[in-house]
């Protein structure tokens, strides 16, 4: 009887859960559409959804509502979509390759590297606009991640989850020290940098998003193909090798995807933390451990969190704003706590 029961669950569960996953994904997309609509309509100047449609498809020159929607809200919504997706997917990949539930994309040193280069840009090159920071941030992210990855894989036998996670955090520690040194010795740098450093969608440059598009697409393609690799890696290095997976190569590809995605996101919006950490955890109870599903769900729910935070920021501090980067944790952390308390997961 016991054997029959196991057989029954073995055949029944995949079907049921597959349907559940598909319905769940549909619901997630529905939520995303609602959040995008809210992001386009709400703000200091509330506009009706009709006006938004008119602004998008039949704009009237000189209409203030239309220009608010087209020039302010569409760019920040687009950037929120891109940034949220990129961060959440990068976070999923990071947790996959380090097998550490604390991993977020910043763990590869991406945020720290980007921040250091931006501080240097402000201090030594006098750059003071978010658009000017973009390429510095992207370069910094890439350099720091390359060093972390190199150190991680220099260890005899190649990078392991533990060396990678420790190397990333150590790198962040070192860079943070240098940043703080520059900040407390130069008050002008501090007053410029602090607003970039919290991460926000306001006054970000849509042109920059366009010029970063190739990197983003490359990262997206890598991420789209990496799901089954992450599934194999999650079994442990030995088992993965036994299954014929080139563990070193897989990790290198995954790291490249993280740098491209997270580097772009950070360059565009500043170091928005927590999205990459929390979304995979929120998603797992619905998807189960299959990384292909976790990646897809993350890509949809990452923007939901970022855009919800951005929209809430416009309403909370009316008529001012609170940066999206600050509210992401306010929205995400309680959900994370509830989910962690409920779940029976022993680990990744």
């Amino acid at each position, binding site marked *: 009887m016991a054997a029959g029961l196991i057989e029954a669950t073995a055949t029944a569960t995949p079907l049921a859960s597959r349907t559940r996953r598909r319905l769940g994904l549909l619901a997630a997309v529905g939520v995303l559409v609602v959040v995008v609509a809210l992001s386009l309509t709400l703000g200091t100047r509330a506009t009706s959804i009709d006006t938004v449609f008119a602004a998008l498809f039949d704009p009237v020159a000189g209409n203030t509502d239309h220009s608010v929607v087209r020039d302010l809200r569409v760019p920040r919504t687009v950037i929120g979509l891109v940034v949220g997706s990129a961060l959440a997917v990068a976070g999923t990949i990071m947790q996959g390759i380090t097998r550490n539930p604390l991993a977020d994309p910043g763990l590869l040193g991406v945020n720290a590297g980007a921040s250091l280069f931006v501080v240097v840009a402000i201090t030594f090159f006098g750059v003071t606009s978010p658009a000017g920071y973009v390429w510095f941030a992207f370069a910094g992210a890439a350099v720091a991640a390359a060093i972390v990855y190199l150190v991680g894989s220099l260890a005899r036998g190649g990078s392991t989850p533990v060396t990678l*996670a420790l190397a990333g955090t150590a790198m962040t520690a*070192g860079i943070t020290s240098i940043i703080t040194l520059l900040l407390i010795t130069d008050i002008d740098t501090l*007053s410029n940098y602090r607003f970039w450093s919290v991460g926000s969608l306001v006054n970000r440059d849509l042109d920059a998003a366009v010029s970063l598009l190739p990197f983003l697409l490359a990262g997206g393609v890598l991420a789209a193909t990496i799901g089954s690799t992450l599934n194999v890696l999650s079994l442990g290095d030995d088992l993965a090798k036994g299954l014929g997976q080139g563990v070193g190569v897989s990790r290198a590809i995954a790291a490249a995807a993280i740098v491209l995605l997270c580097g772009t996101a950070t360059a565009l919006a500043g170091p928005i*933390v927590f999205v990459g950490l*929390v979304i995979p955890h929120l998603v797992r109870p619905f998807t189960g451990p299959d990384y292909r599903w976790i990646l897809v769900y993350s890509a949809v729910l990452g923007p939901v969190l970022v855009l919800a935070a951005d929209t809430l920021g416009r309403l909370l501090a009316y008529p001012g704003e609170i940066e999206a*980067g600050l509210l992401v944790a306010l929205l995400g952390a309680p959900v994370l706590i509830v989910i962690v308390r409920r779940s029976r997961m022993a680990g990744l």
Partner: protein
Amino acid sequence: MTVVKHTDADTRSSRAPSAPATSRRRIVIALLGLLVVVLAALSVSVGAYTLTPSDLVLTLIGQGSGSDNVIVFRLRLPRVVLGILAGAAFAIAGALFQTILRNDLASPDIIGISGGASVSAATAILVFGASGAIVSLSAFAGALVVAAAIYLLSWRDGVSGYRFVLIGVGVAFLIQSALGYLLTRGEVKEVSQALVWMVGGVGGAKWPDIAVLAGTLVVLLPLVAALAPRLRVLQLGDDTAGGLGVPVEATRLALVGIAVALCATATAFVGPIAFVAFVSAPIARRVVRDGSLALVPSALVGAALVVAADFLAQHALPGELQVPAGILTGVLGAPYLLWLLATTNKGDRSA
């Protein structure tokens, strides 16, 4: 005690400490102790007025001249002693957290406890314009409140390491947001001041502070030593530990409580000196390499790190620039850990 490892790590770093490994640990402890003494002697001697080694010894045994006495006992020795005590306290707090929670990233500066101290102190500075002892007290209270909150939130028929760590990180990010809000809204001069406190340093060392911190260590460290054997069993997993007769939850609560008290007290006096708690134990364990808890070597690494950072922060920066020690702990500790990671065998003790 032989333990079957279920990881793929190589067998050379087996968990049962063998005789040569233990003697290696003794040598490492001796060398680290020597390093701390040398660094301390350097810090006390070198400065605008440099003491010769013989002057230093004479002063320390009470035979020094009046000016030497002032320089040593009033100015330089307090910050060195405070640095040693605080470094050791942070390092042991970090080592305990990383071991109890079985995650190398789970040091108090990553899971929000130092953040709790920071946000509370920053509120005191930026919102209430406080300074001195009030900032210290609010930092202490902030760390305790956050630690208690994380513990209660992760309680569900016990506290599993996984839940504690994840909820801690969630809380840490909430705190980071609150801090970000304070730092972007505050007056930029005061923000800079709060930032200096949050970097952490031993510049304001006073003997009464040192006495309090030393007293805390005198009470808590013997407790750590007494609980260490249980901690080793706890490393094997909750079920195994319970099967071996260790009261899992009580031990964990006691150790978390001790770690929080160490971290909070040290933070109150020196600020959350960055990354000492995170970096010390991984460095010490990679140097000792016998799979032990390496609590004593960790404490010595922490002490050496803070004293060295303070020395360099005072004397080595260009243009007479003097900054708090916490700026340099990251710059000093991180490259060394990176180097160790790149050169040590990949099979390490971290589970």
